[in-house]
């Protein structure tokens, strides 16, 4: 039940897109803060950051990158399919995106627990004795990948809801902007990871 005035049937496609892009920019600035800190600490604690980077598992990082990139493809295909009124293909692609997102999080879980078991977490015994830069590196690593993980979680939730709406025909070829906006969000999560990957795994 809505208490607002009855709006005339009016859907502003471009307005919805502008709103979503603005929101994406706020997300971008959210990640900008800690990344700025990373660049500063990287110069200050050059040796400790390089050494810590070598302790991360490059194989898992690379696989996770490939998983997110692929999920971006399935998301983009899903939108194209819906616009062409191929609802079934669109739904399958959404399901694939959802599953890939979950796999990403599972990998992340194993990566984190492996570090925990070696005492490599903020306040853990392995970091207490290390050089100060090492603690900062892992502080930023857990904060940024944790924040990114929360965004992945929000993204797969949105994709689940959207899949339901496509199924119920609330989102369709005629009115697809909500799926497009969910896609924009998912791609942003991907772009953030594209930068987090070299930051923590590659610059050694």
């Amino acid at each position, binding site marked *: 039940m809505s208490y607002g005035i009855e709006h005339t049937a*009016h*859907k*502003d*496609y*471009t307005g919805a*897109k*502008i709103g979503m*892009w*603005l929101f994406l*920019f706020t997300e*971008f*600035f959210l990640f*900008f803060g800690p990344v*700025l800190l990373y*660049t*500063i600490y990287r*110069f*200050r604690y050059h040796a400790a950051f390089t050494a810590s980077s070598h302790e991360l598992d*490059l194989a898992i990082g*690379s696989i996770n*990158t*490939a998983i997110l*990139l*692929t999920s*971006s*493809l399935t*998301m*983009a*295909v899903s*939108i*194209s399919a819906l*616009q*062409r009124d191929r609802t079934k293909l669109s739904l399958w692609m959404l399901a694939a995106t959802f599953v890939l997102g979950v796999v990403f999080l599972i990998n992340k879980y194993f990566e984190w627990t492996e570090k925990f078991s070696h005492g490599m977490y903020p306040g853990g015994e392995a970091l207490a004795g290390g050089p100060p830069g090492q603690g900062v590196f892992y502080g930023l690593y857990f904060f940024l990948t944790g924040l990114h993980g929360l965004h992945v979680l929000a993204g797969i939730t949105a994709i689940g809801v959207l899949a339901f709406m496509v199924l119920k025909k609330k989102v369709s070829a*005629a*009115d*697809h*902007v909500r799926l497009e906006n969910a*896609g*924009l969000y998912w*791609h*942003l999560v*991907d*772009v953030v990871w*594209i*930068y987090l*990957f*070299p930051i923590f*795994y*590659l*610059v*050694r």
Partner: protein
Amino acid sequence: MYENGEKHYIARYTTLVMVWVSLIGLTWLTVKISGIGFGTFSIIAPFLIASIKAFLVVDYFMHLKYERPFFKWILLVVLGTVIILAWLVYEDVAYRPL
């Protein structure tokens, strides 16, 4: 239906798959060259490749290439802001009396 019958860009599947192939290829490349150790370049190269990848995602997957100029302008404003903010903070940390 949306008002004033705006035309929506519909991406071709082949384009999307091509972009994906490039993204995976670039990821393979960046992993291969990491840790080879050519000094400064080994810091710049991964971020250069990451930026190309981000550009591909934003332009093709997110359809920025086909959006009206307004979207491109706000992207420029945002990137400009980030550069200026970072520069001002670096003016502090680079010259800090320690």
